[in-house]
């Protein structure tokens, strides 16, 4: 078994290496600036992700949401039973989380708002926001925070956001609307979507254990 595995991996390395040597000479890169200009944004990657290939991005968001639906569904009702290990509630941790939350929020909003002119966009913004929520949960205790952020309502909001995004996709792809406002809107929707999803999955994983 080991021998076959070594053979297989050596073959893989050899084949991919041969392929690597074979990719030269490579074709010229098409000029990305006209495309970015045609969509009215400065960041060509954003123009591709949220404009030219929005069709792919819709599927990407669907993959994300569907995975989160699955995580929620499978971990539902799986609570930690038995003695909970005590969590040391240190004032330092709580204070620092409170202090950190503001700047993180501002940074995430900045990424959303500037995603079409610079690096950023909805996905990293949402992920950062979700992680920040978990940080807050670490400091406050998961159960307390999830009582404040009532989950079924959040979950429903997440799906409604997806429906909005699908609608936006129809407007951009079928009606052919090209405007920077569409990019900001898409980034915002994606960020909300990813943040809720990240918070939900982290929270599920955490409360399946009982306490972070």
């Amino acid at each position, binding site marked *: 078994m*080991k021998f076959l*595995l070594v053979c297989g*991996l050596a073959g*893989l*390395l050899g084949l*991919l*290496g041969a392929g*690597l040597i074979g*990719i030269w000479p490579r074709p010229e*890169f*098409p*000029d*990305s*600036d006209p*495309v*970015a*200009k045609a969509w009215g944004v*400065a*960041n*060509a*990657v954003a*123009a*591709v*992700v949220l404009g030219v*290939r929005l069709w*792919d*991005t819709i599927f*990407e968001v669907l*993959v*994300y949401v*569907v*995975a*989160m639906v*699955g*995580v929620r569904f*499978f*971990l539902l009702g*799986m609570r930690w039973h038995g003695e909970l290990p005590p969590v040391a509630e240190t004032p330092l941790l709580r204070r620092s989380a409170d202090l950190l939350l503001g700047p993180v929020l501002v940074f995430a909003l900045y990424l959303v708002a500037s995603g079409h*002119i*610079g*690096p950023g*966009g909805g*996905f990293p913004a949402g992920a950062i926001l979700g992680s920040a929520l978990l940080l807050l949960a670490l400091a406050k205790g998961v159960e307390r925070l999830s009582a404040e952020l009532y989950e079924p309502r959040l979950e429903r909001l997440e799906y409604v956001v997806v429906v909005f995004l699908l609608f936006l996709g129809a407007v951009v792809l079928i009606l052919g609307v090209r405007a920077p406002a569409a990019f900001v809107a898409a980034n915002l929707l994606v960020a909300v979507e*990813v943040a809720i999803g990240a918070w939900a*999955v982290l929270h*599920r*994983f955490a409360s*399946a254990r009982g306490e972070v």
Partner: protein
Amino acid sequence: MESLSGLSLAVVLAALGLWVMVSRRNLVWKLLGLGVASGGSILFLVALSHRPGVRPPILGLGPGPAADPLPQALVLTAIVIRFATLALALALVILLTEHRHTQDSRRLEEEE
């Protein structure tokens, strides 16, 4: 140079990840191996978008031609998909450990 080293690292990472995926028996280790291997494929695409002397594909960010934005856009999608798959797989692993009390793939295979 940068591009070539990235491409070769990507291939090596794929082999390393697959090695771990096949030879380790614990499911979480297998997931880690898969993560490294698919990270290799992502690095492969990013390295393809690079060429000596390019600038990031953002208007007004330095001189020279822009890097190829298409692979970068594809990779954004691939990264998110990788995370989604991982989260679902870990949820299933947790569910399975709850039922069967083991994460050893061979024992999961045996007890049926």
